[in-house]
């Protein structure tokens, strides 16, 4: 076996096998980002499904808060109709804001606060919001891994060849971040 043959083999290896491995790893990362996104979508849909029920329950007790209730309904429709990621993020933020004011209004109605149905819905919404936050966190982690991969050597070359584009982070106002205590540095 001559040296040239071995060099040829090595070159073939570097030209074919290594790019294939790198390409596969990129595809795997991209699929992961997609799976992580679908998790967020599931949770967002769950939240949208809960809201009509909540609005109905509150309406039964607080008939004079029509404006607040309508805001929530409007924000929900907007959130459902949002198509791209950035639109989704902003409309979800608005929805979170309107829900917060709805719960603030509910504080004024002791009967409503004692209603089991309302309490259940409140707990459901809290857990769904936490799930959204966690799913978002998982998604952003995956996006970070993917984006780092397509920007660093050697995978950036493959990424450019096969047009792997950077994914967007999903920025939301995190309800859990608000609850955290102040940390002093």
């Amino acid at each position, binding site marked *: 076996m001559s040296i040239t043959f071995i060099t040829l083999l090595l070159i073939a290896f570097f030209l074919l096998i290594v790019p294939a491995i790198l390409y596969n790893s990129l595809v795997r990362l991209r699929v992961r980002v997609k799976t992580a996104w679908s998790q967020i979508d599931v949770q967002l849909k769950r939240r949208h499904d809960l809201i009509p029920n909540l609005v109905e329950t509150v309406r039964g007790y607080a008939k004079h808060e029509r404006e607040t209730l309508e805001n929530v309904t409007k924000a929900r429709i907007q959130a459902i109709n949002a198509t791209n990621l950035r639109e989704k993020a902003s409309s979800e933020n608005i929805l979170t804001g309107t829900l917060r004011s709805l719960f603030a209004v509910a504080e004024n109605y002791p009967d409503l606060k004692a209603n089991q149905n309302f309490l259940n819905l409140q707990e459901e919404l809290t857990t769904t919001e*936490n799930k959204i936050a966690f799913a978002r966190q998982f998604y952003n982690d995956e996006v970070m891994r993917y984006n780092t991969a397509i920007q660093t050597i050697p995978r950036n070359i493959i990424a450019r060849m096969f047009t792997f584009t950077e994914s967007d982070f999903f920025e939301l106002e995190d309800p859990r971040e608000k609850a955290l205590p102040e940390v002093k540095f």
Partner: protein
Amino acid sequence: MPFSFIDIETKQSRKIILLFLTLVIFYFIGFLLIYSASELTIFIESIRGSHQWHKTHSILPSFQTILILLATSFLAALVHWMLSIRNMINRMLSVIRAKPIDPEDRYHLLFKNIVDEVSVATGGIKIEPYVVASRYLNAFALSDFHGRSIIGISEGLLLKMNRRQLEGVIAHEAGHLVWDDCLPATVSCSMAAVYAGLLRMIVSDQERARLPASLPLMVAVFIMRFLTLFLNTWISREREIRADATAVRLTRDPLSLAEPLYLISRDWRGDFLPSDELAPIFIVNPIERKLEESYGMFADLFTTHPPIRKRIDILLDMGHTDFKTFEPNVKEKAKIQDEIPISVPKEEKTWYALNGKIWQGPFSPSELSSLKWTDPFTWMTRAHDMKVRSAFEFEEINSLFKKRLSSHLPVYTCPACKNSLERVYYEGVPIWRCKECKGRLVKTEQLSRIIVREEMMFTEQLKEKVKQVRLSSLKNKGRYIKEPPSALTCPACGNIMHRTFYRAVHPYHMEIDTCRMCSLFWLDQDELEIIQYLTQGRL
């Protein structure tokens, strides 16, 4: 680290082989030690002159013997493996006395929700929530080869922690699941258990027959026991810290774990374990020892968990704070005051119904539909309205009857005063209460949960009643005040209830009515609180 359950599954098979090989090696070392020990015994005996020492004997085993030992240890490992993985989780759950959650219980629901949330954060590991009905503060995680994962928590912890703190605890356990720590821990636990059992057997034999010959054997098993314990503890200690770190990665909130750790360290973790071997699966060692909280190499070798203070310090460091500012800010959850009725639409009592030949009332619509003697054909009327019709002709009542038919909840009437029972949450447990006489219908398992919870505040009035119960039980010395059988019928099956003494309040005597077939208790007004008061601080 693995990023999702898919990676865990691919890693699983490699891990299983590794674990099995470890098991084989352990058995081999064990057999080798036992073999040399027995040879040594024969040697000692021969020196004494009671036994012939052949030239073929040697304390070091020959190649052939090693092969035989290897084969035997392989077989033993195989048997052990089969035994330990068969039904592994269920056996461990029964040892810990963990039960699946009750989806109607408010605390259990909260627990389930948080487990689901954390499961989302891990990228979708499917986790089953389990609960142990006891007052100690601890949590654990289990998993097996079929990808079944369990996170369990004690009622005590579930009660004393707020939502954020629970999230920290569950994230720590989920950290174990993400790293797949539980599987080797479970197998190594069962491994250690074998040696511990063997040692116990030998020791008891020793006491019975005083066999000096088994001394080397005992030493061999003793060494094996310590070796497995090392393995156990060494694996466990490293893992706790790693799981703490993963918990922070999942929740992004180091204090949410530091706080429960601090609260647990000041409370009771429970020494309910049949042996030390199960300790590694818990968040803090259930068996409290001085050694556990000390530093140094010796402690490192012999304890399953790192000192809690060390773990808290690491977490506080991540949260950029220190123990002095952290400690005064940790607060326990506030107690709740009252029973919460489930769904209380306000209704006016304006309805009358014909029971046989007597008009009864006034009732609210929901009361009417839940009375046992009413049906859609009962004659009914409204106050200030002279029309008398069948119930189904009133739309309002008819819809309630329809709802009652479609709901899975049974309709009960009070055994004492025959009014309808309503559903209420008592300390988060859904029970039945009579609106009029305030008696309560409780399932047996619910009662044990209520006893653990201790959330109600006790009024002075109640304390007075407790005093009376104590006095009367001293006076009557175990005789019934009201003679059995009781005059009450079970709301569920209609049979006559049994009048018995409630066992958990011993040495005091409290008579309560129970239906053993339906495992239901009927408690008169305040009796539930009295039971709680008398069982305070007990297991």
